[in-house]
């Protein structure tokens, strides 16, 4: 039981990271960014490549994951900004459907671009960056691969560190959006772009910033995913994108706390579903909940609490 909850919270913490980006982008430009899941996938491929090509990285243990997280976050952030600038911005005043279709196009572009570079087969995650095996972990960092008991269940040290990282990232983001000048500007744009412009806010630059942050979080989640499941494919962003969307809907799309809550909720639901009904049903749960929420409570758990909405 405890173990199921712990697994659910771990998986949920990176669903939450992806859902955050989804929700932020929706909040600020009302776009369901279908390419967001593929940014996550791209982040995983960047991570895998870094773990393979950077000399000596294999001996750094959890340090390797830290380096890879950083590189991946920066590159996926930049990719998100690029996509927004080139593909979405020119359509800022176009009908919503045009932008939506463009987002689907960007999703395909990322998927098949990655397939072109790394090939169609699933790629094994390099030993050096795995969370579940002790291979090559240097002295002093073995704790990263050891299981730590928590109330009768256990997680590896590295898993705990990554969960903590996700929590810290979300807390920092919540503070940034809620309390800083730039965060206020983002919320202002979400409410009224014209009025925001009249306040002197550079709307395009601020939207770019949102895409950077959201995409970087997805990149972080991509690395976490690879490190946990030990294998990645160029199509995995599709499913994860849908799950992040589900998490965002469960929490109330556009609502940041909702995205975090929705991600954790979905992780837990899946963990219990897997334990009770078997792993093959795992993905079905997500979509049952998506449909249930969309029909019964489309505003999500946190509903219309628009204060945190951005």
């Amino acid at each position, binding site marked *: 039981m405890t173990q199921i909850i712990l697994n659910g919270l771990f998986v949920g913490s990176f669903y939450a990271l992806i859902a955050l980006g989804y929700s932020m982008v929706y909040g600020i430009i009302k776009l369901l960014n279908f390419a967001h899941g593929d940014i996550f996938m791209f982040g995983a491929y960047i991570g895998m490549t870094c773990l393979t090509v950077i000399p000596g990285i294999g001996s750094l243990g959890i340090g390797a994951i830290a380096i890879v997280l950083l590189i991946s976050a920066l590159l996926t952030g930049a990719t998100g900004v690029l996509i927004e600038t080139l593909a979405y911005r020119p359509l800022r005043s176009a009908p919503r459907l045009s932008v939506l279709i463009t987002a689907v196009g960007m999703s395909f572009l990322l998927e098949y671009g990655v397939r072109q570079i790394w090939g169609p087969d699933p790629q094994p995650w390099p030993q050096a960056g795995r969370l579940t095996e002790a291979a090559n972990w240097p002295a002093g960092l073995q704790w990263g691969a050891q299981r730590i008991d928590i109330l009768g269940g256990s997680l590896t040290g590295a898993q705990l560190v990554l969960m903590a990282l996700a929590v810290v990232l979300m807390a920092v983001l919540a503070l940034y959006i809620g309390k800083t000048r730039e965060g206020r500007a983002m919320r202002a744009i979400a*409410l009224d772009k014209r009025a925001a412009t*009249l306040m002197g806010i550079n*709307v395009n630059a601020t939207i770019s910033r949102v895409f950077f942050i959201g995409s970087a979080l997805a990149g972080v989640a991509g690395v976490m995913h690879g490190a946990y499941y030990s294998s990645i494919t160029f199509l995995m962003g599709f499913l994860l994108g849908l799950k992040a969307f589900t998490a965002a809907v469960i929490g109330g799309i556009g609502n940041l706390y909702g995205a975090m809550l929705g991600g954790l909720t979905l992780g837990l639901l899946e963990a219990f579903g897997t334990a009770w009904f078997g792993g093959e049903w795992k993905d079905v749960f997500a979509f049952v909940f998506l449909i249930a929420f969309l029909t019964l409570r489309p505003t999500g758990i946190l509903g219309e609490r628009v204060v945190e909405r951005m």
Partner: protein
Amino acid sequence: MSWLEVDGVDVFYGRIQALHQLSFVVEEGEIVSLLGNNGAGKSTTLNLVSRIVPASAGRVVWQGDDMARTAAHDLVARGLVQVPEGRRIFSTMTVEENLMLGGYRVRDKKAISQRVDQVYDLMPRLRERRSQEGGTLSGGEQQMLAIGRALIAAPKLLLLDEPSMGLAPLMVKQVMDIIRTVNQRGTTILVVEQNAKAALRIADRAYVLDNGAVTLSGPASQLAGDPRVVEAYLGG
């Protein structure tokens, strides 16, 4: 040279021409009013100056500089701030946050909090409601908030789009008094109004706009007595 010069401007929305060779000026320290009925082009004129809508002919010159290449969001830093039609308060943000957003381009945090205090002194109702959501304020309070929000940027020229819209007579008077006070403290004002009576009471000069062009102009006191204005805008 005038502070603000709008010179021979045409503005189109698609094939509809909203402004026809529009020209007017605003001098430092004045309150200038732009009067006109629905659809006369008043909002378009303010949005032209705020660089929200582009001119297809003519120029807008502010303090000697042609504004054609300045981005809308950079005008605040040049001292040009607009209070838009319908107030456009950030409805789910608090009064205080709305005011803080007015100071988005002000880097000096101390200056912002000083100005927030000044705004609260000028409009004590806002101080009482500082942590209330903007959208829950009454229409008059929202208008005050919209003006207060603009003042945090310490505008040189404040552009006001129908500040009296939808307000009860007593509230119209209060808002007009606030505008006059702001002007006396050194801010130049260009105020667009359908309520000619209220606007002419506080304005130094006025222009009457009809179908996107100036049809009459002169000192406010003189226009208030002009039979054409009386008939068309002051209810005979």
